[in-house]
């Protein structure tokens, strides 16, 4: 059955790869365990430059998700927004705990994500299908 939606939201974010590499070098495991899930850390392998680019893209995805969820108060824990990568390399967003609650409150029924990175920058775009119309008050 086709899921009905009334509107879309789009979030985008850009992160400097060098910033993430420097943060990993400075804060190490504390940073990694605070921001990324086990699955994400397992997905971000390779030489440090490549791993940093993958981490930066995932951080951008988390921020892009926040832009579509639009939390009015406390933001979800970063690990409640996971970029899940399947065996062929396709990525999707998995929400848990407070991020999942925020999505439900916002009427978000589906999320799609696209990640990209070059040597210097990593970017993520997130599209959300929303199942009810937003009420705009003039």
């Amino acid at each position: 059955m086709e899921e009905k939606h009334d509107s879309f939201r789009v979030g985008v974010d850009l992160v400097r790869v060098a910033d993430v590499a420097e943060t990993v070098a400075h804060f190490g495991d504390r940073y990694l365990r605070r921001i990324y899930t086990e699955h994400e850390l397992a997905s971000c392998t390779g030489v440090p430059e490549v791993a940093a680019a993958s981490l930066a893209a995932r951080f951008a995805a988390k921020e892009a998700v926040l832009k579509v969820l639009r939390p009015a108060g406390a933001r979800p824990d970063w690990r409640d927004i996971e970029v899940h990568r399947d065996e062929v390399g396709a990525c999707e967003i998995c929400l848990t705990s407070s991020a999942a609650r925020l999505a439900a409150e916002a009427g978000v029924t589906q999320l799609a994500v696209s990640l990209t990175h070059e040597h210097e920058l990593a970017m993520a775009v997130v599209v959300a299908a929303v199942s009810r119309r937003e009420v705009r008050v003039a």
Partner: protein
Amino acid sequence: MTDDVIRAVLAEHGRLAVDVAALDPDADLYQVGLTSHASVNVMLALEDSFDFEFPEQMLRKRTFESIAAIRAAVDGLTRAEVD
């Protein structure tokens, strides 16, 4: 003392486009270059400096929007540690 530590953390980790020493305590840090990722660095460095951990309910943009806002958060958390 607390403000000095906060300014030192911002100078080292905030990647701001201005001189932190000259910043008004109420100046909007996002308007002077604080990014989401840099705010994570600031958060971790503040935790190192003051020996506490920011709880999830304080992880909001407003917590890091100014030196005064950070000061209020630090004061609240250090008081909670004492209590």
